[in-house]
């Protein structure tokens, strides 16, 4: 598995750091971590940078995670980047909505590095 370029999207800077740390604890070889605090910032970064993985919160100001995924899937260069939603919202309807919009997997907060490993690593192996 090649070193990954990762984009972490969360309005909490603390949570972005924890997600980044959890990826490393899960054994992911991280080449570069980019951070965005909302979906709008994340879209700009996704347009400008080659990415291997995106982890995104849902409840964020300006543009939430669902709208971010919907718009991301319309960008040709970002069409196939795995997107993992990480959120406190765990309702089945929301999970279905996120997946139907193009999310690849769903992790509920609070999460363990093991859960990150289980959901994320298979996505990077294709």
């Amino acid at each position: 598995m090649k070193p990954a370029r990762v984009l972490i999207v969360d309005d909490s800077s603390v949570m972005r750091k924890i997600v980044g740390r959890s990826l490393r604890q899960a054994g992911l070889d991280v080449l570069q971590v980019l951070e965005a605090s909302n979906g709008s910032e994340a879209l700009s970064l996704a347009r400008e940078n080659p990415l291997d993985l995106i982890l995104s919160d849902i409840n964020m100001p300006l543009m939430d995670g669902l709208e971010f995924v919907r718009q991301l899937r319309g960008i040709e260069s970002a069409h196939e980047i795995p997107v993992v939603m990480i959120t406190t919202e765990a309702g089945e309807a929301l999970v279905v909505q996120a997946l139907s919009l193009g999310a690849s997997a769903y992790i509920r907060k609070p999460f363990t590095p093991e859960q990150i490993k289980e959901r994320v690593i298979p996505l990077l192996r294709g």
Partner: protein
Amino acid sequence: MDQATIAEQERVRIHLSARAAGTRARAARKADDAKQPETHSGWREELAQATREVFEIMVGTSLTQPTEPPPLFVPDFAAMVGIAGSLCGLVSVRTTGECARRIAAKMLGDDEVGVAEAAQDAFGEVCNMIAGSFKGRISGLADACALSVPTVIFGRDFTLFSLARGEHYEVTFEFEGKLLSVSLDLHG
């Protein structure tokens, strides 16, 4: 219907005031005394379990509960997350600034948190995860309610006063010897 009744009905469903100590605080305490008793069996314990889960997984600490009745303490740091939908109310977590900074440091894996914003951010996220975990534990609530983004307030001599005036559930914990209170106020 008199004007006071109409005004009461037109109030926003979740309203918070941070009030200075004194006559206003005493008024808030009177309203606090008027909160309705717990009627949902097991919700207090679910709130406690949600809190323990968040601290064990994200903070790396097992919380303990002080003996009943829990000792009084003066929190100066609070985070709140609103719940709206089939259930309306507010989840709040209260502690001291020192304790909030310690929680943030543990979450980040640092000895200390140098930036005040990090403690606010971390404490808000803790409250957010507790609210989400609680919601997920109650059958039918996960899809039926949405959570607000967290709000954090801090300072001396404030009283959190929810106009929800419905059921009130509260659990007090000890985190590294410091007290921490978690509560759920439901709209009446």
